[in-house]
């Protein structure tokens, strides 16, 4: 790890991070304020107007009547994946491939810092930015819930849900980071590092729509992530927490090895 580089990377990344945080906070406030404990049926009625496949695709089908499951269904099933996913695509590409593509990596490597040190610094920034994003999001969620509906949020399952979301986004960031480390140009880095997570996301939506396409669930990491199961306590720690973490570690480990060994066009 190199503190000087970390500072510079942070300075160039904080704006994007803040924008994504702001969008997500906005949605979180809207969704929590939409919850009406006395009239959950009216929302259900609203959903019935929309095509049932679409509602199922976005994971809104089995939304329970509690505030916690309401947030899990409306926010964590869709928005809490989609926005961080875009953040990961943008940031992952910037952290390595953009430096190689533009040539500024030559300056970083012309200092007495090994490639491993440089890339570990970038990876550290990436993972911490995601952790920080969800720390703020989950704390804000508690504050907002308490101010609108004191005492209704089940804190423990809610925090577990945030942990699981963080880990599945870790996995997404690992995919982006890996292709960013592997390719010389931002074009390829974005095509695969962005394309694969987006494909996973789409597969997951389609798989949720109905039994006909349920098999697509085998081809996406998001099958490991089921917010409503986590809220209800009916989930396996292995597949929801441990597996995403292992995939993440493998992807980041692979990124470091690939970047250290390959020829750079600088």
């Amino acid at each position, binding site marked *: 790890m190199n503190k000087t580089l970390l500072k510079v990377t942070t300075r160039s990344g904080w704006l994007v991070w803040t924008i994504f945080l702001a969008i997500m906070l906005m949605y979180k406030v809207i969704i929590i304020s939409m919850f009406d404990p006395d009239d959950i049926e009216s929302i259900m009625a609203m959903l019935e107007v929309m095509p049932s496949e679409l509602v199922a695709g976005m994971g809104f089908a089995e939304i329970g009547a509690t505030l916690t499951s309401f947030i899990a269904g409306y926010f964590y099933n869709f928005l809490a994946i989609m926005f961080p996913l875009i953040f990961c695509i943008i940031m992952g590409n910037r952290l390595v491939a953009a430096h190689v593509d533009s040539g500024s990596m030559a*300056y970083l*490597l012309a*200092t007495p810092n090994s490639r491993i040190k440089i890339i570990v610094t970038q990876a550290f920034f990436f993972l911490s930015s995601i952790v920080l994003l969800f720390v703020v999001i989950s704390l804000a969620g508690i504050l907002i819930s308490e101010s609108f509906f004191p005492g209704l949020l089940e804190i423990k399952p809610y925090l577990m849900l945030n942990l699981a979301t963080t880990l599945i986004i870790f996995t997404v960031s690992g995919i982006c980071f890996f292709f960013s480390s592997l390719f010389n140009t931002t074009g390829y880095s974005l095509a695969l590092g962005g394309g694969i997570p987006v494909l996973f996301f789409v597969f997951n939506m389609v798989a949720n729509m109905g039994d006909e396409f349920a098999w697509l669930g085998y081809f996406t990491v998001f099958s490991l992530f089921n917010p409503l199961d986590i809220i209800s306590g009916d989930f396996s720690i292995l597949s929801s927490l441990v597996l995403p973490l292992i995939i993440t570690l493998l992807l980041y480990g692979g990124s470091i090895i690939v970047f250290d060994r390959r020829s750079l066009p*600088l």
Partner: protein
Amino acid sequence: MSIIQVQDLTLTYKSGKGIFDVSFTVQEGECFGYLGPNGAGKTTTIRQLMGFTNADHGNCRIAGRDTRKNAAEIQNTIGYLPEEMSFFPGMTGSKFLKFMQDMRKTGGNSRLQELVELFELNTDIKIRRMSKGMRQKVGLITAFMHDPDIYILDEPTSGLDPLMQRKFINLVLEEKKRGKTILLSSHRFDELELTADRAGIIRSGRLVTVEDINSLKASRQKTFRVTVKTENDLTRLQNSKLQISSVRDKQVEVVVSGNINQFIKLLAECDISGLDIISQDLEEVFMKYYGKEADFDEQNIT
């Protein structure tokens, strides 16, 4: 003692281009010119010296250490100027220089200030808004500011105006006096002749020769464009033993290699209205040095 060692270095790109079995050494305190036309493989060699690329075979050593495997350890002894200036565009010049100092963990602003003043650079401007020449200055200051023992400079004078080029040459000569080892690449011979002790000539990825700079100089020919006032003088020039490459109106182009005195004596007898030296590109140096193109290629293969 040889500081920079390139041994049997081969690195092929997918296009089939690259460098092939390049070997040379640069001694301590020596200034080595790496000369070749664009695309000959100068930058490819230098990238390997910086540890950016994986060679097909062969290796490079700097101060005895492998430049790929031990890249990080040797960087602070090297002042590197890349061919293309691509910094962190959002930073100002001074922020970038400070950033590089911190990355190297080398403090001390006196050398940095000296260089900023020498090159008359305004460091408050964002690099994104800098002209090519200004960026080149930032690159040069980055290469020189930590007072390294070895300089690896890729096309160092590109984008600099003549005044700055002179300042740069003086800086290189000063560093040479201080015992520094310098490798600088160029596609122009005249850029090297003031600074280099020896030059390696590379073409199409193959190192053609490594020569003392003075013998390269001697083998170099110059073309003068002479404008005469009268037809009489024109015939006089044409009838002389001088090698005439072209005649247009009253302009004669004369190729001079060894017979400079004869040329000047003859000129003194004529009524001259103009005299220009036509700068000679590297291809011509090659032509003179190797005779015909075909010979040159054969020499490469064998």
